[in-house]
């Protein structure tokens, strides 16, 4: 009875846009979700998603942390403290947060170069991420990897070559199946990579061998500067797996992402083979820091997404609307996040660069030290595992 009232109350909120009157609200909520598009699937994820207050605050925290971290990276890049490649994720936070909410830490994940968000959700601290971007020894890869090459247990980067991570992801899924550990691999790629040949090679083998691989296309509508309409003969990326079932959901809604991912993960764990998910999302920044991002799309478009579909605002408004948390609580979280990001940036700018003695290390694993030729024949450097 109570829950029925809650559902009605929510529906009314949606229609009227007014805030709900408080009742016994700090526990669980049922939310109606928009239907998702299905390909070769009898049914999709449930239309209702449950959100507890704790979960809501956690997702908010995660997304806001990623947002602020990326904006800090933008700032540091403009100050020339970060150099080289920097592909920012702001706008797409619901994807990383939603996926992580649906899988286990023991599952595996691999993505392409827009990877800072996933590096965080997979367990690396903002401090270590920023310090890697600034190329310091405190970075997650000791300064040797940079933006596109960050790793963590069960997180395989961070991959610079477009599409190359997709066969790798299927290989990781193969290892899961081989070892019989009931784990899955989430393998991400973008709309730009979606037409790559190696993806289709991979889809074929994953389907043949029924690999427990969730292929996820983060469709942010632009592959570098090329819109999906100009790039793809078919923009239904969730259908491109042909014989692999697929689903398409709103990637700006963290609950949609979570439910879809849960559904997909269950599909794999049940031994049904791979599945493709398309997340419709958006990036506020250009492709990378060297792309202003406004030569191929309008500022109006970016602004519209920000105001109508921002993932963080959407979640916040929902929770406020249902009185699951207060404005003050969100403010507190924001302050805490800002502090952590600020401290991390401090560390990232003050930590020393890796020592030159480290230059040649980590060529081989579990091998005796070897000599490495330097820039001239008299320069004999040492490399240890």
């Amino acid at each position, binding site marked *: 009875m109570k829950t029925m009232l809650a559902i009605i109350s929510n529906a009314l909120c949606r229609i009227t846009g007014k805030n709900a009157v408080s009742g016994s609200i700090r526990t669980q909520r049922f939310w109606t979700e928009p239907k998702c598009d299905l390909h070769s699937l009898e049914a999709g994820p449930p239309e209702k998603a449950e959100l507890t207050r704790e979960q809501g605050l956690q997702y908010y925290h995660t997304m806001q942390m990623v947002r602020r971290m990326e904006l800090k990276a933008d700032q540091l890049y403009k100050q020339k403290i970060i150099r080289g490649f920097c592909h920012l994720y702001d706008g797409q936070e619901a994807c990383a947060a939603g996926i992580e909410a649906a899988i286990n830490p023991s599952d595996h994940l691999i993505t392409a170069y827009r990877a800072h968000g996933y590096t965080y959700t997979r367990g690396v601290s903002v401090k270590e991420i920023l310090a890697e971007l600034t190329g310091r020894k405190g970075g997650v*890869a000791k300064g*040797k990897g940079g933006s596109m090459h960050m*790793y963590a247990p069960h997180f395989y980067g961070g991959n610079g070559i477009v599409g190359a991570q997709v066969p790798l992801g299927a290989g990781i899924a193969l290892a899961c*199946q081989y070892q019989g550990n009931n784990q899955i691999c989430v393998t991400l790629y973008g709309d730009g990579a979606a037409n790559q040949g190696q993806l289709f*090679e991979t889809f074929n083998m994953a389907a043949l061998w029924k690999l427990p691989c969730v292929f996820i296309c983060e469709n942010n509508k632009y592959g570098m500067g090329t819109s999906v309409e100009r790039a793809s003969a078919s923009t239904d990326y969730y259908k491109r797996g042909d014989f692999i079932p697929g689903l398409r959901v709103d990637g700006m809604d963290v609950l949609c992402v979570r439910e879809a991912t849960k559904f997909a993960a269950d599909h794999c764990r049940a031994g049904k083979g791979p599945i493709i998910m398309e997340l419709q999302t958006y990036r506020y920044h250009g492709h990378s820091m060297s792309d202003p991002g406004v030569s191929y799309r309008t500022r109006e478009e970016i602004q519209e997404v920000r105001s109508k579909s921002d993932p963080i605002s959407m979640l916040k408004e929902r929770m406020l609307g249902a009185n699951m948390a207060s404005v003050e609580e969100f403010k507190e979280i924001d302050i805490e996040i800002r502090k952590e990001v600020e401290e991390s940036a401090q560390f990232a700018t003050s930590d020393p660069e890796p020592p030159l003695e480290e230059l040649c290390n*980590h060529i081989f694993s579990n091998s005796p030290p070897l000599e490495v030729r330097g820039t001239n024949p008299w320069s004999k450097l040492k490399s240890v595992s």
Partner: protein
Amino acid sequence: MATSLKCLLRSGKEAAAAPAVGDANRDLAAIQVTVRDALNQALDEELERDERVFLLGEEVAQYDGAYKMGFTGIAVGAAMAGLRPICEFMTFNFSMQAIDQVINSAAKTYYMSAGQQPVPIVFRGPNGASAGVAAQHSQCFAAWYAHCPGLKVVSPWNAEDARGLLKTAIRDDNPVVFLENELMYGVPFEMSEESLSKDFTIPIGKAKIERQGAHITLVSHSRMVGHCLDAAAVLAKEGIDCEVINLRTIRPLDVECIEGSVMKTNHLVTVEGGWPQFGVGAEICARVMEGSAFNYLDAPVTRVTGVDIPMPYAKILEDNSVPQIKDIIFSVKKTLGV
């Protein structure tokens, strides 16, 4: 499903069983084993020894297919997640399509991750010229792969090399490119009892002096080692005593062995099947020049290589595109000034 997949990947080639190496027929005398059988036997033993080792590739086990970039990437991913794949290319020419996965996903990852992510994988397959397969299927990739840090590149010649190096490669926690030679598969070699034992390994990075000599050093790898030994036999009759070094490993190169030999013989000829420019011989020349053996040279180093052209099809043309024994003999004499 998992079990049947495992069987698929671990069954190996449907090759003829290796000769009765393990049973009562074998006595103290060394037995003859072809390179192919040596490889298959080593594979079987390593598959049995470690559950994580499995085979993947073109026409491997029951899997009929040729999806190069895809399966190479899958193999590398499996290696990252705790398995120990042996990724087989029908020939290394096909690896050129998948080379991004070999270099960017396998070779560089341990370094990029500052030691967090090892990639224990073996890439194997026939390399270099075969017979009548023409230009797109005859390229030697030794120099291409040996150029890259993060890879180990080995090139066995005989059955003992094949067996020992393959075992070492499989047990190595790093990406190893294992360059075989199609024309050598059917060639039998005597193998000692020791070399047939289950834990017989040959260290990567160590060359072998196949024939001791005093007048000139011949350095080679793979099939050309046999040619060098044949040339040495002919030259011996004319009083020229050749030392023949079998590199066994291209990267890391055993410069110490080469230098030691050159300091003894004062003359060096490198012999390879691949193209001359920026090749294995070129690297050996550079290394000898930079090191202590340079002052011991009585003549510049001579490189004997494949002809600098795409491989032709017609037999007479093909035969004249790779070093023949007479080319080695000629080059030795020129280097010695006789």
